[in-house]
């Protein structure tokens, strides 16, 4: 089963392609870039080789969900310079954390920076 995802980055296409190449998110599938209309930046389209099976679902490693995380984190990194982290989700966007949130109160350990 094929699986697709897309995201738009608020930067020109050459910047997006350069940053994608240098950060190289691990995505098994086809990745294409396209100018978004007007002032909307650049679209990234991903078609995964495999949509994953029931075992992946049980393990929480469905390729599509993982790819979406990677797209979101790429967008955050290139647009803002960082991965936004909350007290409830200190690693930032992550499918594994989605339903296993920490309470929204400060962490005991020091910041990772």
């Amino acid at each position, binding site marked *: 089963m094929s699986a697709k995802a897309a995201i738009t980055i608020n930067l020109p296409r050459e910047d997006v392609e350069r940053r994608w190449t240098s950060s190289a998110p691990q995505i098994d599938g086809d990745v294409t870039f396209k100018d978004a209309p007007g002032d909307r930046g650049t679209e990234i389209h991903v078609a995964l080789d495999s949509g994953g099976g029931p075992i992946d679902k049980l393990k929480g490693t469905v390729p599509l969900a993982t790819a979406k995380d990677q797209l979101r984190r790429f967008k955050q990194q290139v647009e803002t310079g960082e991965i936004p982290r909350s007290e*409830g989700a200190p690693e930032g966007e992550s499918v594994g954390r989605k339903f296993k949130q920490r309470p929204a109160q400060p962490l005991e350990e020091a910041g990772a920076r």
Partner: protein
Amino acid sequence: MRANVWSGRNTVQVENVPDPKILNDRDAIVRITSTAICGSDLHLYDGYIPTMKKGDILGHEFMGEVVETGRGVENLQVGDRVVVPFPIACGNCWACKHELYSVCENSNPNWGLAEKAFGHGTAGIFGYSHLTGGYAGGQAEYARVPFADVGPIKIEDDLPDEQVLFLSDIFPTGYMGAEMCDIKGGDVIAVFGAGPVGQFAIASAVMLGAEQVIAIDQYDYRLQMAVNKAGATATINFGEDADIVEQLKLLTGGRGPDAVIDAVGMEAWHGHGAIAAVDRVKQAARIESDRGLALRDAILACRPGGIVSVIGVYGGLMDKFPTGAFMNKALTMRTGQCHVQKYLRPLYEHVKNGDIDPSFVITHRLPLGEAPNGYETFKHKQDECVKVVLKP
């Protein structure tokens, strides 16, 4: 530090929790000098917003003094006095570049969670469930402020906290509600709800040139504040007369208000009869999350071709949305969590110029340790409560 945390439905408690730390370069830590309980905190308190977790620090209206900054924060210095907007916004994404800060595309690390509920994620919000990021809130002694180079506004004069604190949420929220009405000369604006946000919506509608502003609530003390402090020209107490739509028509020569602001949201209490009863049962049974009484009446009351401006908070689904009235009367609906960052500077100028003193809504001042009492007093409208400010 001490912080007010959510411990389950109708329960908050002030506990010792770890101090916040810088997690990212664009973070700052603020020592909180004033914080407030918002009407929308009551939706969390009452358990109607999903994805709350025991131990979540509440609070999204706060201000204080910068005590630490990350490497990426150059606009703030330690010692600066700041008001912090409730939506967390990166300033870089397409939405932020178009001043749509409350739908920032990057600040919510639980975007995927929110996407399931809303189709898209929305901005992170302090202390406002994990759907909006799982950020620790500001009813505490300290808070970590992400993207501190974008959000907080420096207060560089000696205006007291109470006059600038509400720039964090309720003043801009009320203002945006009025602005969305596209007020023109001669307009009559009706405001459902004379709580703190409703008061600022009324005051803002007056500032923006409304000819008449009608305040609607069930508590006389709130309606009196709306007239005496916010500038409402007429009131409807639906406790005395349940038919708000008919009353609004009588007050407008049968036309209906040119625009109607819903400053109530998902826990509307007015309404009698079968539909209201069904709503209450469904919401209590968690079948329907949003009780739509105010919004339904807003749509029915608005004049044909008018605007329905929704700033009351909704969280999920409501039943019996009057699509027929909405469509056939050619209404426009405008809505949103407030894009506070857009309004901070101009509204701060209004406060500095003396055009408005937002402290008029404050009825209760309590130490942070009294937060649980503050929630109960506010929820049950005891002691003529309109707005509770907490001092850490």
